[in-house]
């Protein structure tokens, strides 16, 4: 029977008291290396253009000078953002914390996950990392992405999430939500 008990706010599980797990340190190197490779391509393109077309490139030489600090900031940014990236797994949802200037705390209910994707780019394969994407029925921006998880952890998490996502299909309802959350 449907119950509609009063739910005091102070009895709700508090997201801010959770022990969030940091991402592995090699995720920082993976990010920085990816950005470095992109800037190297831009640098090579610039050098090549300068070598073949010296006159126009000399007029924008100062522009290249300003690109250097921009490149350094872009490559070094993962060091700062890694410090603020955390994740936590609860019994019925996954929480993500990320962002330096624009901080975000996101809760993704496991029962709302439609399917799960595991991405591994070439750099991620080098560092033994993977990105886990939890796809929901929301629009594209609503998908939950755990970037640069260790591969074994990502696979374990994927299997666990799939198991939890199908719990209603098994006819079982978590006991702790049967009492007050309905």
């Amino acid at each position, binding site marked *: 029977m*449907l119950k*509609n008990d009063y*739910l005091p*706010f102070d009895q*709700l*599980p508090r*997201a*801010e008291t959770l022990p969030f797990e940091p991402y592995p340190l090699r995720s920082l190197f993976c990010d920085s290396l990816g950005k470095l490779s992109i800037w190297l391509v831009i640098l090579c393109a610039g050098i090549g253009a300068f070598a073949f077309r010296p006159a126009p490139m000399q007029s924008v030489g100062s522009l290249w000078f300003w690109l250097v600090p921009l490149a350094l900031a872009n490559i070094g940014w993962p060091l700062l953002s890694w410090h603020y990236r955390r994740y936590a797994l609860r019994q*019925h*949802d996954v*929480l993500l914390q990320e*962002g330096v*200037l*624009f*901080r*975000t*705390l*996101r*809760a*993704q*209910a496991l*029962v*709302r996950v*439609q*399917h*799960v*994707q*595991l*991405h*591994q*780019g*070439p750099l991620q*394969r080098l560092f033994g990392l993977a990105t886990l*994407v939890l*796809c*929901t*029925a*929301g*629009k*594209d*921006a*609503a*998908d939950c992405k755990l970037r640069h998880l260790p591969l074994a952890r990502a696979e374990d998490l*994927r*299997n666990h999430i*799939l*198991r939890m*996502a*199908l*719990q*209603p*299909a*098994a*006819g*079982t*309802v*978590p006991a702790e*939500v049967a009492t007050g*959350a*309905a």
Partner: protein
Amino acid sequence: MSDPALPDAPAADPQWQRLPLRAIGPLTWPVLRAHWRWIAFGTASGGWQLKNAMPAESGAWALPLLFVLLVGIITFLRWRNLRFYMSAQALHIRRGGLSRQETVLEFARVQGLQVHQGVILRLFRLFDVALETSGSETDAAHLPAASAEILDRLRQHLRRDARHASSHPAAHSLAPDTAGLQRELARSGAPETPPGSGNAAAALPATTELHRLDWQDLLRMALTSIQTLVIGPLLLGLLSRGQDHAIRDYLWLPLHGFFMSHLANWNEEYTKLAMGVLGLAGSALLAVGWGMWRYGNYHLQQQLHEWHHQSGLITPYAQTMNPVRTCGVIWSQNLLQGMFGCGWMRIAMVGDSGARRSSEDQLEGVSRAFRVPWLAYRKALRLQQQLFASQPFVLQKGARYQTLAPQYLMRNRLPYLCLPLLLSLAGWLLLYGAEGLGLPAAMGALLWLGLGEWLLRRRFASWRFAVAAHSLRLQRGVFSRSRTLLPWTAVQSVALKQSSLDRFFKVARIELAAPFGKIALPCLPLAEARVLFDYAASQAIVPLARRY
């Protein structure tokens, strides 16, 4: 104790299989469509290199050969790197060589199976198979050139899963509640007629008319449509100012000549005014014509558990939906519609994103929300009650409407009022110096600040939200007002966001992802935002089957 219904972890050595070898041929066109830029770039740069290295007469065949070689290599790699494996509960797909992607899609989540077979696929006896879910990453559930055997195995898995779902009604959290339908039939005393039986026509329940538009409603709806009132005359005016344009030659000039020759005592200004009025009347007629064509003969009906609406005089359009799949209701009106007290009601549904294939790797989701036009708010509330007749707790009252944090005004003045003004001033000083900065500039700045401040205050005053036990209600909008009802069970994920400015003012933003889009509460006190975040997160984990 293991539950056989739970998804099995992939076997230690699963039997990954590839698409049949003959799929390489049909895969060529999707590869070309998806990667034509890279192929063109590769061909052009390779051709440029070859041009210097090879004799001139061989250039005629070098480029086409290079193109065919590139397409062939990419297609072969695409075929080679796409593998799949069907376990008891899920479909596992792996794709990609350099950047790998693995998707696990449970059969229980599949809401539909789309099978296409074009001419080329038919030649190779293959099928383009797409599994539809409610998820947004629809490219994951796509096998571009599957054989009949693969298709049969997929269908067997889905049929077996559907049989399991019908014996366990709570199995499909997003599927129509067929067991609930049976209960309703029994309760209403209607005979339980199996589909396809001979007595189906005799057992059809009566149809209830919910909403209908007459010609006066259509006229008001068309005339309050902003785009037709503004874009119509603007377009006519722009077209008529063209140099050698047909409209100017065959419409504007003859009319202008008629006015000038027959109304000789009119001067040029009156003529232009008459032309303007004529343009406005013309666009109004166009709007009315569009309204009649699109929404003429509109009626909304309810038949047992389905809502059905039909409209259109020349090209009828019909849509049917099951209210059980409602995941949100939005009623909105623009400024002109507000004069008549009417608006539009949009009923967002779960799992109604029809997937349409646009390239090999992408399936675009097409939202088919159920829109009810020209509705007064009170009537919209009555329709909402019927919509949620099976879930009356969603509409439970008692929650107080709250406003946003008082810091909203101060927090938004800096980025939206002061910063653009300062940037414009800085830009002007850089380009023109202090020249031109005088009384007009000061008046312009004051006007900007005054209007902006008024708009900010109106926005703040218009924002209201109420957190009920089973739903969230929102009211917002200055010129275009909207009222939203979002059941908590439709929330997919919750996010609490704070920019640097938000942290300074100790406020935060809550974003709730729903199947039809994102609902945001922009500026809440931080403590309140945290409580709401925790509450929404605890509500989002409740399975949909627990609605009843």
